[in-house]
């Protein structure tokens, strides 16, 4: 049984040369003008022709929310399920059809509020499912209530005096749940997002991709402090495998591990004797999630940049492969048990 993503060998050879158009369903998206979702679908449709999987073997599954209308706009197999429940649906599909490439498109409310339980279990199992979470830090479809990623004190229709609840930090949550691939990107950083999506497509195992997404209607400018041209360089830290963690307009800022406090800290190259050698070299492939988690938590403190890119990318056996292996073993053990033998079980008697 083929469980690869189709990037190798014969299967790849048989994949037609697709263009972006092949992945457009022709249904006009109903997103508001300026919504970050447009940029996300644009990138997904650009990446799909490059992942080496036949169109009919790709399935997009979503929950409920603005973002979850996604599958209707793709020209693949798709299912728009129930609020929060997409991972459960995707899991059943993946376990029973390991050869399919399965994507879950979800929102922050969908994945982390009503679907929190399904989400963490999907990550922990390490089924080869890619979950793309559009994080606009608000409920869009129901017109502007707080979500589990809304910041403390956020004023919305249900929190007129400010949200009293602490938000989730999605990549840290995914890491805590055991996701083997965790990444973050931003709607306005198209090329970056495309790269992250492509890496996720090539990853075999549970993948979580958070895309910071602007909802101009109910939470406009939620990420302006990160993405506005004048501040972007100082606020976004691009993690690149094997490269030191540098950022800032002139590339002089970096991240160093303070060995006493065991905390990551922001330093400036050239100041206080700091050289590039002192900076942390990004490595998402560490089996131990401690480093990835530290990076995921980097922006939780004021004055720190928000990392984008891949936090974690490790290999572990996938649940669908382990399951398939058990099936093979059991088949080998029981031989070719016919219907009668199977129905008879072990203890029988004959009445004549």
């Amino acid at each position, binding site marked *: 049984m083929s469980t690869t993503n189709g990037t190798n060998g014969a299967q790849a050879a048989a994949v037609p040369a697709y263009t972006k158009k092949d992945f457009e369903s022709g249904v006009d998206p109903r997103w508001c003008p300026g919504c970050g979702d447009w940029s996300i679908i644009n990138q997904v449709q650009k990446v799909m022709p490059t992942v080496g999987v036949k169109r009919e*073997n*790709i399935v997009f599954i979503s929950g409920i929310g603005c973002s979850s209308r996604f599958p209707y706009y793709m020209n693949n*197999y*798709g299912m728009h399920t*129930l609020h929060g429940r997409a991972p459960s649906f995707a899991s*059943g599909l993946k376990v029973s059809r390991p050869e399919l490439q399965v994507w879950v498109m979800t929102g922050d409310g969908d994945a982390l509020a009503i679907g929190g339980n399904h989400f963490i279990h999907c990550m922990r199992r390490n089924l080869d499912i890619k979950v793309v979470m559009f994080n606009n830090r608000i409920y869009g479809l129901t017109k502007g209530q707080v979500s589990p990623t809304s910041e403390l004190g956020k004023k919305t229709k249900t929190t007129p005096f400010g949200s009293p609840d602490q938000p989730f930090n999605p990549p840290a949550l995914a890491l805590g749940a055991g996701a083997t691939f965790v990444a973050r990107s931003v709607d306005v950083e198209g090329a970056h997002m495309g790269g992250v999506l492509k890496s996720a497509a090539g990853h075999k195992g549970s993948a979580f991709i958070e895309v910071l997404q602007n909802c101009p209607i109910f939470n406009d400018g939620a990420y302006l402090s990160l993405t506005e041209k004048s501040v972007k360089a100082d606020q976004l830290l691009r993690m690149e495998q094997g490269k030191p963690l540098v950022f800032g307009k002139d590339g002089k800022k970096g991240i160093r591990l303070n060995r006493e406090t065991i905390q990551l800290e922001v330093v400036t190259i050239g100041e206080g004797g700091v050289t590039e050698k002192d900076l942390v070299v990004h490595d998402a492939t560490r089996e131990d999630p401690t480093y990835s988690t530290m990076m995921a938590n980097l922006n939780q403190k004021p004055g720190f940049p928000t990392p984008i890119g891949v936090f974690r990318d490790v290999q572990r056996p996938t649940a669908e492969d382990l399951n398939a292996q058990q099936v093979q073993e*059991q088949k080998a053990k029981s031989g070719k048990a016919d219907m009668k033998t199977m129905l008879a079980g072990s203890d029988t008697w004959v*009445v004549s």
Partner: protein
Amino acid sequence: MSTQTAAARKRQKIDTVTIRFVGDSGDGMQLTGTEFTKASALAGNDLATFPDYPAEIRAPAGSLFGVSGYQVHFSSKDVHTPGDQPDVLVAMNPAAFKTNLADLRVGGMLLVNSGAFTAANLEKAGYKSNPLEDPALKQNYRVVQVDMNQATEAALQGSGLSSKDAARCKNYYALGLMYWLYSRNEEQQVGAIQKKFAKKPEIAKANVAVFKAGYDFGETSEIFHEQYEVPASKLRPGTYRNITGNAATALGFAAVAKQTGRTVFLGSYPITPATEILHEMSYMKAHGVVTYQAEDEIAGIGSAIGASFGGSLGVTSTSGPGLALKAEMLGLAVIAELPLVVVNVQRGGPSTGMPTKTEQADLYIALFGRHGEAPLPVIAAQSPTDCFYAAMEAMKIAVKWMTPVILLTDGYLANGSEPFRIPDESELPKVEPKYQTEKNGPDGSYLPYMRDAKLIRPWAIPGTPGLEHRIGGLEKDSLSGMVSYDGMNHEKMVKTRAQKIRNVVEDVPDLVVDGPQQGEVLLLSWGGTYGSVRTTAEALRAEGKSVAHAHLRWLNPMPKNLGAVLKSFKKVVIPEVNDGQLAFVIRGRFPGVDPIQYNRINGKALKVSELKKRVLELL
């Protein structure tokens, strides 16, 4: 002397016996019961069993709520129930004695382990004095007191077993005694013990010794004046196994996988009394079954629908509270028109209710428990072995009609067992899943909601080139399946989906009336009460009464001739283990028919004697 006694005894032939073994959860009563059941099966009896165990896993020893029981009804005739009232009650301690005595038939045999009637145990059971000393006991029952503790100890003298291990063997003493009393094959059981404890020869030896001691006690003691023999029944020739309802349900799905060569995918979350379906199917990996223990019931059904979307045969198993959680997903399966079987092993509700006790009170949620207009087929199994056929039938309907189907069983069927004749492949219902592989639209497109004459939509699965499509929970255009908020389209879709489910009636056999085809009283039952109601009607007819029985396997759609059948009788009685759910549905569907309700909601199966009494009052 002993042989003389034995020879002097009469060996009496009897038709039917019900024995109940009761003791502490740790006393091995389930084992004793199943071993005796096997012996009865091998002796050719028809039989039915019912285990009854506490909700607590390890209740304190000797406590009233820690009593575990196993009832077996065996006969030279057809039996449909595990028996109303035991003829023999084997009670291993005062708590078991106290909680079960009332069920023992007056005149029946009471075998007690008098050695367990110690001051401490009596106190735990709430007795101020030893009830065995009550003279009334002997007036009502044939009391046989044996100090099994002591007898077991004696049989194991010098065995080197610890006193704790030795005490564990005493259930084999009771078993030995029953073997003797009912003329069972002693050697067979010795062989079974040796096989069972093959890895622990010293335990095997001890159990054999204790078993033989019990058997020999029957032979040598003068307490018993008779020995009984229940001749073989006229079961249909074939190879048999004993099976519980839950195991039969699991096997039914495995048979579907084998027959179709397709994957049967079970997504489930443990809940009593449905869990064994998940347990059993987890062992069936070699036979095309994939099991997925989900994080909750919603994920259980969600994964199963996902599997069905992918072309597998999705199944989810649960009990009442779990079905409540699955309601939203069921709506999705209805609107997406994907095949799915939802097994609900009913138990006492509402809420956590009485999880280990049986009830038939989920008919309403099965028929109506979804938002919006969401009809779906509902089938109820009628006996432990019928769970096998009902599972296959439910899947046959699901894949043929592209719809979720609810299969209702209950705790009584799930845990009860009876002989299952291994069917030949040709006798099995045919499950025939079909995938769409061709475009079906006029302009070379694929229309996922274009229906055939029976209103069934095609099933195109991922991996099929050219048929890529998107569906979901939003209302869809009647052909393309694209989202549609057009009001008239919605009305059309609601009516079409409903009509499709009504069309399923072509696969619903006419209701068969057992007994007179018209007359005084019709007993109308559904689900797990089949056996008790059938036995009641047969017993009343044997007394010359005009009482017919009809059993509804199909709750939706209902058989075409149901209305006519109901109108052929002066009185329709609906016995149910709930507060009148089928009666309510019948009143609604057949105005003018006002069934007489007979309801028991005590966590137990219907008693034939009680129902019979009630029907006699109506005649």
